């Protein structure tokens, strides 16, 4: 089993041409989950069109070049794709040993965001300025390193066959590992990412087989934390307003409720088949802010209608369904936990993102996986797909 896997790295005993190796019945290409890949690609293609539609008129953003965002989006997509291939090539197991280093780097990057190196966009200091107009959002990478780090800790003894379930000490360590970056991100504050991370932690604990007490305790802690944040007034006014607008959709449609109201109008007016790509009045009129990133789903809703919006949901559903299969069929707890973390991440982030455009979730600054404009998010998502593929390809074939 391992010799085959390592063949990709060139350590195999038999020398075959690269093409032969890729096309062989037992090659990685054959064993890869093509459904996940194609669903992701389909979402990315749709996303590119939506991003283009949302930005070609925004002269104040695109610097007069209608393709400005599209080009950058496609470049990011290419990089993301490369990162996915790289991840598959390295394999999640080999990454396992690099996790402490990766974790350290991402946490360090997150800390840097809080320093003057960070850039504030939309009230959140969540971006790191790399110069030359490039920014990176460390929170996106932290989602990966928290998943990998916790999986590493929680699965170590179980995969070694020492225990059936992680012991309390291990769980405590794992939670500590997650708590540090969550705290940093909370300071930014990037509530959306915090929410996703909390859900990831929850899913990781569930998948690790940790005692129910931990799961329930974490839920209670999360709820308590939310109450604490609210009562202590740690939230900025805009964040409170988002909740207020969510609680009362009719609230101040020109002010606080503007975003959600316009988003709902955009989606609702799409009807069954939409107004046609590039023909959405809400979109061309730029009534929905942040439409290429957090509110990209409104473009789909308006221009492609229920058919287009539904297609995105179906593609996401297929992707997550396949990811669940990978998690269930994985033989190692480490792989299972990683897959479960990715599933929770994709699912919750998609639900929160689309949910807020539909008015069933409060607004939080989160991109829609695979679809939204945003380099870091794209990289992280495709790395995660790489992880899933790696788990899939490196599991033993039925004997």
């Amino acid at each position, binding site marked *: 089993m391992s010799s085959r896997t390592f063949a990709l790295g060139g350590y195999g005993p038999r020398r075959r041409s690269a093409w032969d190796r890729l096309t062989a019945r037992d090659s990685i290409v054959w064993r890869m989950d093509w459904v996940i890949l194609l669903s992701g690609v389909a979402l990315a293609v749709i996303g590119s069109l939506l991003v283009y539609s949302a930005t070609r008129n925004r002269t104040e953003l695109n610097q007069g070049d209608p393709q400005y965002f599209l080009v950058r989006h496609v470049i990011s997509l290419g990089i993301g794709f490369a990162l996915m291939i790289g991840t598959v090539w390295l394999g999640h197991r080999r990454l396992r040993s690099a996790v402490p280093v990766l974790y350290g780097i991402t946490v360090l990057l997150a800390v840097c965001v809080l320093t003057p190196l960070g850039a504030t966009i939309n009230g959140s200091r969540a971006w790191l300025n790399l110069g030359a107009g490039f920014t990176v959002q460390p929170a996106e990478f932290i989602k990966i390193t928290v998943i990998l780090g916790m999986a590493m800790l929680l699965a170590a003894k179980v995969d070694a066959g020492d225990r059936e379930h992680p012991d309390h000490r291990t769980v405590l360590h794992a939670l500590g590992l997650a708590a540090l970056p969550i705290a940093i991100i909370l300071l930014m504050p990037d509530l959306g990412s915090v929410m996703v991370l909390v859900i990831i932690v929850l899913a990781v604990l569930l*998948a690790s087989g940790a005692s129910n007490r931990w799961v329930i305790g974490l839920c209670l802690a999360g709820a308590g934390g939310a109450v604490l944040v609210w009562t202590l007034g740690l939230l900025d006014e805009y964040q409170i307003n988002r909740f207020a607008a969510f609680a009362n959709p009719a609230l101040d449609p020109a002010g606080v409720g503007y975003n959600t109201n*316009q988003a709902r109008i955009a989606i609702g*007016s799409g009807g069954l088949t939409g107004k046609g790509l590039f023909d959405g009045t809400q979109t061309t009129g730029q009534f929905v802010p942040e439409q290429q990133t957090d509110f990209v789903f409104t473009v789909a809703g308006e221009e492609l209608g229920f058919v287009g919006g539904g297609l995105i949901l179906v593609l996401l559903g297929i992707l997550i369904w396949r990811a669940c299969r990978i998690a269930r069929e994985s033989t190692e*707890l480490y792989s299972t936990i990683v897959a479960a973390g990715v599933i929770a991440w994709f699912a919750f982030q998609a639900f929160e993102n689309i949910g807020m455009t539909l008015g*069933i979730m409060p607004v939080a600054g989160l991109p829609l996986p695979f679809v939204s404009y945003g380099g870091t998010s794209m990289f992280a998502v495709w790395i995660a797909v790489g992880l899933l593929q790696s788990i899939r390809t490196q599991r*033993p074939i039925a004997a």
Partner: protein
Amino acid sequence: MTNIPETGRSSRVTIRLVAIQILVLSLLLTLGGRLWYLQIRNGDEYQKQAKGNHVQQVVQPATRGSILDARGVPIADNEARLVVSASRTELMKQDDDGKAVLERLAKVLGMSPKTVREKVRLCDADTSQPCWNGSPYQPIPITDDAKPQQALQIRERSEDFPGITAEPEAVRRYPAPYGANTAQALGYLSPVTDEEIEKAKDTDSPFLPSDEVGRNGLERSYDSELRGSSGVTRYEVDNLGRVMGEAESDKARPGSSLITSIDARVQAVAEKQLDQAMKEARKKFDKNTGRNYKADAGAVVVMENKTGRVVSMASNPEYDPNAWVGGISGKEYAKLTGKKSNYPLLNRAVQGLAAPGSIFKVISTTAAVNAGYPFNGRYDCSPSFKIGGQVFKNFESEGHGSINLGRALEVSCDTVFYRLAYKEWKKDGGNLPKKGAKDWFYKTAHQFGLGEKTGIDIPNEVEGRVPDRKWKKNYWEANKDAWCKQADNAKGRPSYAERIAKENCVSGMKMRAGDSVNYSIGQGDTLVTPIQMATIYAALSNGGTLYDPTLGKAVVSGDGKSVKEIKPQSHGKLPLGKKTLKQMDKALQGVATHGTAAWRFGEAGWPQDKIKMRAKTGTAEVAGKQTTSWLATYTDDFTIVMTISQGGTGSGASGPAVRKIYDAMYGVGEDGGIDKKKALLPKPEAKLPKISKDGTIVAKRDKRRGRDASASPSASPSASPTGSSPSASPPGETPRARGEAEAVRNEGERQQRRRDGAQQARATRVLAGGQRP
């Protein structure tokens, strides 16, 4: 899965993984459901909102079309004025609800702050005029009469006047050419209300919040033609209101102009003469009531016989239609709708109801002929006529011996018609009516169009009533409870009113002999409008066609390309043979030459040989009030019907005025000579005024040079005691000549008292006892 080595995987993990999978997919299902709800369930609503979002409408109001007289002289048009308006929405945004701004505005405009405040408050159940009745989102006009420097002040200090605008706007104007204000026939405009906007939303002519709507008269009945349609340019805008493109635009289509059959000059004369006649009547003493005639209201209609077109329609008391322009003030509104002013908004020509008196006799004559009584038969015109114990007298108990029906019309002999009506009443079964009673006198009235609207093209026409059996029955059913209660409550010796109540309670549904007899001479419960009588007399002249009276003659589109003529339409034919019509016509000529109206026409220098005049006088009684004066006349081309409420006799009160209108129309001088140059309208205006290529309508030049000036509004009716219109009477009329006219009239009044078919002495209500023969 069973063949996968189970390393490090507990069942707990598997179960939890399945749970995660279910949870995740249910989240996605939730999203799908919500998506369906927004896009499919509520898609239409959001589509509407999206449209409202990105489409901005810029409205160019359409200019309202003019209303012109038959010669093209505007009687309602527009002028540019500086309008200062306040936006309520803007004012309400201010801390003090705009109080300070309005105060400053009042100072600049030289108005009292209270007036300004009243103008911008909204009308509701507790707020009466003055208040704003239009849409609260529409700018409310404070004044349409701002001076340029006032407007300039407001504009330059716009920071002091948030929500206040000063813009030139086209404002309705009623120029009253020749002094003809034509108020009631024209009607008036007022701002459209929110309900109306909502109601007309999906029709062909939706309203804009800034629209004014015709509320009465021609302004209302031709509103959709006159209003045109506002131009709307819909711009697609982005979130900052920047225009991205023009979505669609409808060009403003100016309103069509309405050419009416009104001749402003004749209208001016008619208004003036009506007013003058009423003033004269107020100087006369009424023997029956022991005080001067009140002459509280009056109307005159001049109609073309062969088309039913209305040349002139005046109603008194009058008002200035310009009072409505730019929002009416509280004081003016109270004046226009108050009892004290006797409701000048009413158009008495179509809304005024009165018993017709003897001008009804043309109907009774027709009824008699159709019932089989020959026109030239001999009928006893005895001084009085008895039914049972009750005596019905002729006017001043005068007898004329045995006469034919024509003569009965000439001298307005009541007893002839009493007898015929009584005979017919008995034939129909008397108090025990037969099945299929002929009811000739009632049937004929219906055939003449009474009890029904004439269909004139202005609103609020009333139908009047023919007090036939059906009406009696309905009326009794509606009132019997009250009558019977009143009769039952009577204690001891019943009073007069209680006896009447008892009578009505028991047999109020029955057509009594007295009712029928009274009815035959146009008294009692019959109610007619001047326009109905004009239609009838015009029909007598034109061979029997009852035309729907019209004021509108043609609708000319704003560009002048489409001219839609309004063709005369008829709503019936008089039930009269040619021979009878001729006989009747001759008899009515007799009225003018040697009958009850002779002292106004034949004996007063009317050139009967050149212009054949027919007339019928009437003096109708109204319970508890003074008599109504009626005069119905016609020549070959025109019919004039005048009535004055509480004005006295037909020829006495209305005679001189009607004569003066004819004089002006035909150019008849004091001596009876006809000066064609002075004639305003000797023949009906057959042609429409010239419409030039750009759509403007050119007013016909007045051939009588120099006459127009003298007919200007400044010549008030009271300036001349004879009330002759300046355009009608020769400028050289001397005080002596006027004095003569006065003398003639006084003499005539006495004669007329004997001649006119007034049944002054007769009680209005006849009591029981004598009722049952």
